[in-house]
């Protein structure tokens, strides 16, 4: 048998059982309530010696998550920590140190002297901070409740050490307690357990304990929607509280003790669709675990560490609790084959790809080999290297290529050059328009411009979009059997659930590729007359600059929702299937909430959109990383009188941080309204220059 004293609760239970049978299966209610109450007190008393009080000096009064982020006033009182090893390591919530105090002091129960403490390391994924005090004696370490024994409904008591009692320097008093149950397991992407005990600054950093005095977890503010140190603080005392399982903390304790800050391990993939869609990889970040491990765009992830995943949410549950440096195996389905990619080492940060720039606009719809230069951006690398309008670039040689390589047209050229980092030296052969001789040219790629040409040559296309491309085995684009419809057309998605408008200029020429502008109207401007007004503003440009407009509508009073993504994308795809659309110039354009939707679509449907143009719209979510091979450019307009102007300028900064090309125009006399003629004309030139290389 087990040779150790029976835990108090077990003794109680047995005693109760005895009472129960003695009283014919109907124990007095008092006994049960009292037994439970006593058991809770006993469990609190058992853990109490390990629950320390933390006081800090200095630091800021407010904790904020950024310019326009949340702000929380840090209380001046003490906070809580839990001893995790007898040699003086104490785990606590990162919230307790988020105001960057200059000194930390710890009171350990049973000792009158306060001990200065230092921060050892922070776990940024679970918002925990490990601190250390010097100690000669052995500190009491509580027992961790095994994760496999945690169950929803179990008693859970939250403890804090936030009471100041000058007559109780040794902390003999009971910790502040709140009684509840375990409400859920595997919350916050598998990182936390949930409780309905009241969790707040009163006990952040303290333990959540079970009825036998074992620590289930360490209390932290947390939210499934955000990862900053304040996320979840607005839920304090609401009955929604979180704790990081102590067993998990013990698993990484050695790393934390060595002073290693822990960060989330990222795979480096982008997916499309919502969280319930299958995890199909749409893009891969350079240098990421996915890139190094051999995941390819188009792969469907079917398992992580051999645990099957069917949706993006399930994938996030498997990956969400991983650390920087963790190794995982990823099973992907590629075509008919299933492949297990092993030892993918996750990393903490991803590199945002900086798109390169040669400085030319190519002539479109040209089936000949090479690329004819339609326009040279002033002061660009191409300009500096002496490339002129009308020249034809015939070969390219990039580092790693043994010899110059021929290529077929704009898309092949940009696929070769567009994934190189800026600063790469590229060798080109250029057949001159004047004279016809071929010159070798060396050019060092710059960074993709945000300039919009003031004037562009009217001839943008060779008007041979439907002819077979030379040097490619791909079949020629299908010629339409009959002349496609033109004008303002009302359409519906296949399921006939959503309506959208398409405007095709009457002089539509299927041999010329058109830019597609997806118009996302502001709230309440989705009526037919609104669409006609929009057409009136754009129709001349549509004809002269080869543009087709797709304008879905929403009747929601709140405007666009994330759930509209599917039907809007479908409307774009349907239109692309019907008309000759230039895939390099598909742009989401919106105003107000429509503009927010445009940002959202731009980031969500990276395979579809190459540009986002907004007016009076703020990016509401974090900007995603720039991805090689799927460039995205931004054109932001703000009215100087629009109250949002400052936040739109901030949106620009955030996009620039992710290395996007961003043109930002603040129009002084304009309020929160649609574009005036001058800006609209520039937006059209921006659309016309989006296939720049």
């Amino acid at each position, binding site marked *: 048998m087990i040779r150790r004293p*029976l*835990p108090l*609760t*077990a003794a109680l*239970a*047995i005693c*109760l*059982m005895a009472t129960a049978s003695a009283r014919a299966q109907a*124990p*007095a*209610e*008092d006994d*049960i*309530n009292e037994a*439970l*109450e006593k*058991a*809770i*007190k006993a469990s*609190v008393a058992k853990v109490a010696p390990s629950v320390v009080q933390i006081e*800090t*000096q*200095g*630091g800021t*009064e*407010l904790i904020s998550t950024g310019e326009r982020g949340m702000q*929380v*006033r840090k*209380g*001046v*009182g*003490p906070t809580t920590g839990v001893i995790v090893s007898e040699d003086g390591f104490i785990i606590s919530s990162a919230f307790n140190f988020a*105001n960057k*105090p*200059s*000194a930390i*002091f710890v009171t350990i129960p049973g000792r009158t002297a*306060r*001990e*200065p403490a230092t921060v050892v390391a922070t776990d940024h994924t679970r918002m925990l901070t490990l601190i250390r005090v*010097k100690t000669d004696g052995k500190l009491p370490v509580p027992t961790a409740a095994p994760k496999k024994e945690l169950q929803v409904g179990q008693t859970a008591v939250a403890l804090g050490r*936030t*009471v*100041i*009692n*000058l007559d109780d320097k040794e902390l003999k*008093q*009971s*910790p*502040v*307690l*709140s*009684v509840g149950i375990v409400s859920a397991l595997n919350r916050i992407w598998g990182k936390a357990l949930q409780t309905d005990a*009241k969790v*707040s600054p*009163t006990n952040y950093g303290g333990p959540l304990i079970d*009825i*036998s005095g074992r620590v289930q977890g360490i209390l932290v503010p947390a939210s499934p929607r955000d990862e900053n140190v304040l996320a979840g603080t607005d839920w*304090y*005392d609401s009955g929604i509280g979180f704790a990081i399982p102590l067993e998990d903390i013990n698993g990484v304790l050695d790393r934390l003790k060595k002073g290693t800050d822990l960060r989330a391990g990222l795979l480096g993939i982008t997916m499309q669709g919502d969280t319930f869609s299958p995890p199909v990889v749409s893009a891969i970040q350079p240098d990421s675990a996915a890139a190094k491990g051999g995941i390819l765009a188009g792969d469907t992830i079917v398992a992580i560490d051999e645990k099957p995943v069917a949706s993006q949410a399930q994938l996030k549950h498997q990956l969400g609790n991983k650390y920087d440096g963790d190794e995982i195996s990823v099973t992907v389905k590629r075509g008919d084959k299933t492949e297990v990619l092993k030892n993918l080492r996750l990393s903490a940060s991803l590199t945002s790809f900086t798109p390169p720039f040669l400085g030319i606009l190519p002539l479109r719809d040209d089936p000949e080999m090479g690329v004819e230069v339609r326009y040279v951006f002033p002061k660009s690398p191409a300009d500096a290297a002496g490339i002129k309008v009308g020249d034809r670039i015939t070969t390219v040689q990039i580092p790693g290529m043994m010899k110059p390589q021929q290529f077929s047209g704009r898309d092949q050229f940009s696929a070769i050059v567009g994934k190189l980092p800026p600063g790469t030296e590229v060798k080109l052969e250029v057949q001159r328009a004047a004279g016809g001789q071929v010159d070798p040219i060396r050019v060092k790629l710059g960074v993709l411009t945000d300039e919009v040409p003031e004037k562009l040559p009217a001839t943008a296309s060779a008007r041979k979009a439907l002819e077979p491309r030379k040097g490619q085995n791909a079949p020629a684009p299908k010629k339409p059997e009959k002349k496609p419809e033109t004008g303002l057309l009302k359409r519906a998605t296949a399921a006939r659930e959503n309506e959208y408008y398409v405007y095709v200029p009457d002089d539509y020429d299927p041999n010329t590729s058109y830019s597609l502008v997806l118009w996302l109207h502001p709230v309440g401007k989705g009526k037919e007359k609104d669409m006609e007004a929009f057409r009136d503003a754009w129709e001349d440009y549509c004809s002269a600059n080869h543009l087709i407009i797709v304008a879905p509508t929403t009747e929601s009073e709140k405007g666009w929702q994330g759930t509209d993504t599917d039907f809007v994308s479908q409307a774009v795809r349907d239109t692309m299937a019907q008309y000759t659309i230039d895939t390099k110039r598909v742009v989401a354009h919106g105003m107000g909430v429509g503009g927010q939707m445009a940002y959202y679509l731009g980031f969500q449907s990276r395979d579809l959109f190459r540009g986002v143009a907004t007016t009076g719209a703020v990016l509401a979510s974090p900007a995603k990383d720039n991805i090689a091979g799927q460039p995205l450019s931004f054109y932001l307009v703000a009215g100087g009188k629009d109250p949002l102007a400052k936040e739109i300028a901030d949106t620009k900064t955030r996009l620039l941080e992710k290395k996007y090309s961003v043109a930002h125009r603040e129009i002084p006399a304009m309020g929160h309204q649609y574009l005036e003629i001058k800006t609209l004309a520039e937006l059209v030139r921006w659309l016309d220059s989006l296939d720049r290389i």
Partner: protein
Amino acid sequence: MIRGMTAPAALLALALCAAPAATQQQFDKAVKDVNQKMVKIYGLGGFRGLPAYGTGMAISADGYILTVSGYLIESPKDLRVHLADGRRFDKIKVVAVEPELDAALLKVEDLKDEIPFFDLKESAKRPAGQPGDWVLAFSNQFEIATRNEPMTVQRGSVASVSRLRARKGITEAPYNGEVYVVDAITNNPGAGGGALTTRKGELIGMVGKELRNTLTDTWTNYALPLNAKIEVIPDAEKPDVKATVSLLDFIDKGIKGTYKTVARVRPEGGTGGYHGIILVTNPEGVDRAPPYIEEVRSGSPGAKVGLKSDDLIVYVNGELVSSVKTFKDIISKTKPTDEITLEVKRGDKLRQVTVKLEDHPKVAKVPAPK
């Protein structure tokens, strides 16, 4: 035996299988008993977000009511009381108010019969509540009930028994004695004056107001214990003579008509004693600059106990000094004859010294040029 089942699980299973009916019965009895003694109070309010309703407890058979002090009872002609049996009384006398205890005593006039009441003296004889005790809170928060409808009952535990450190807006709450902090969200609009009882319905405290805890900057849920007391100066002419007034005293004298609202002892603001410590001035951008010692005047009380530059003052009289400002605030309340205990951090050790404050020197010493 309990094979395969953990002890707590067994306990819970037992509780769940065998007990629900019985447990409910027990609460039912307590709830019925307490509800008979609760009253609903209506008064001033209804503007600027201030509720015009509150809760009270009958504490005598002839209609004395205990509730919280505040604007609600300020205008006796606007007061109305609904007794637990549904009867409405419009003639209410404000008998006594003690803002320092946050308590008020009302009397329902024209009451012809005897009503059920809490016997406070008996209740106060019971041992005080302890952290972990199950408690029930009864109040008419949010004016959910009227007339004879019962109070809202909430179940929770005593989270701690500790001094109230709270504020309303930027004003510090007057009562700063011990309270029961509870882990249920009890302190809502109109809840003040409600009853906090044991799970058997025995009264242990009066639910307080909506206040923010200054230490954690969160809303706090608390009740005034029956043994609440404050230190007062009965005679303003003799500020050194202090007396203690308890909640029971207040009620006792209130009923006898002899209670006088008192002035509480507050630390007097003074010039503060001289310590000779000069602190590092506030570095830019730090709201709570820690009190590092820049210099200690030679011969000063600080120098006598060996304080040095670069020492960090951490605790004064046992309380953490979070910033330079806090230190100055504390010192400003001292007198030149006071002794203060400092704990200072030097290197990674904390050492304790007792500084005997002195009169400020007539002319500040200017250190001689080296």
